[in-house]
């Protein structure tokens, strides 16, 4: 847990958050406690590393506050270029959320929309985004299945010259994913 009153040096990313991420990255894989602890420590070091580098870049830029651009440059100079595009995506979503929130607040002030309504709208937006992503994932899954099916059919066609009528070639959709 956070040691707000104690040393700041004891701060780490909460173990539960790391556990959740590990589980989502590698579902059904066991990870020893020692390994998890090490990942937590590595996170702390990573954050210090990027912050430090971003800080230096910020100092050179004569700006007083570390900006996301400084962070991106830090990632690049430290060899983490592959992270940059996803970081930029998150930043874009940040802006979108902030914008919607500002619009919603001004609407709230002008029209008196209750907070529950704002929450509802926000949940809708996220639900829509999740659905789109789920649909994308499912499409990819279907495509993979189709490719696998075709590969199978090609293999069995060469092995068995006899073709059955009304074979599964006509079916393109599986019921269960």
């Amino acid at each position: 847990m956070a040691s707000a009153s104690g040393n700041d040096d004891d701060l780490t990313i909460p173990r539960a958050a790391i556990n959740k991420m590990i589980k989502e990255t590698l579902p059904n894989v066991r990870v020893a406690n020692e390994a998890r602890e090490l990942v937590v420590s590595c996170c702390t070091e990573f954050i210090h590393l990027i912050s430090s580098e971003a800080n230096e870049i910020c100092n050179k830029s004569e700006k007083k506050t570390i900006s996301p651009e400084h962070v991106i440059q830090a990632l690049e100079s430290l060899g983490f270029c592959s992270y940059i595009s996803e970081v930029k995506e998150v930043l874009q979503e940040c802006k979108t959320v902030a914008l919607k929130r500002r619009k919603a607040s001004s609407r709230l002030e002008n029209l008196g929309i209750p907070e529950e309504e704002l929450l509802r709208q926000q949940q809708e937006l996220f639900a829509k985004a999740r659905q789109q992503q789920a649909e994308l994932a499912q499409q990819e899954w279907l495509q993979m299945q189709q490719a696998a099916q075709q590969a199978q059919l090609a293999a069995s066609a060469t092995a068995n010259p006899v073709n059955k009528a009304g074979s599964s070639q006509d079916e393109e959709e599986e019921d269960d994913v």
Partner: protein
Amino acid sequence: MEERESCVGLQQARESAQSLQPEVEVERPGLQHKLLRLPLSRIKGLMKADPDVSLASQEAVFAIGKATELFVEVIVKDAYSFALRGKRKTIQRKDVDNAVDATDEFAFLEGTLD
């Protein structure tokens, strides 16, 4: 998750284990965001622990948070590929060690391994 080959290169291991899109709850009173898994406040606290580090914008903290999540995904996938090479199904600490040793960008972690 695909495990076509018994010995996967690190790059393949990273590409084959697709993770779900992240949904993170940022600790905020009132409206909640779901953009990052790691708590922003903790990330900010870690940054501030370094007295030399100046103030960072909230977006900068987000950026670092997202980068850290990606880092976790990468190192965990790499560790997994080492566990597979060792014909184990449980990721051990030494797999994380190996993952650190195997990647140049992770050299900064050498001191953490003790």
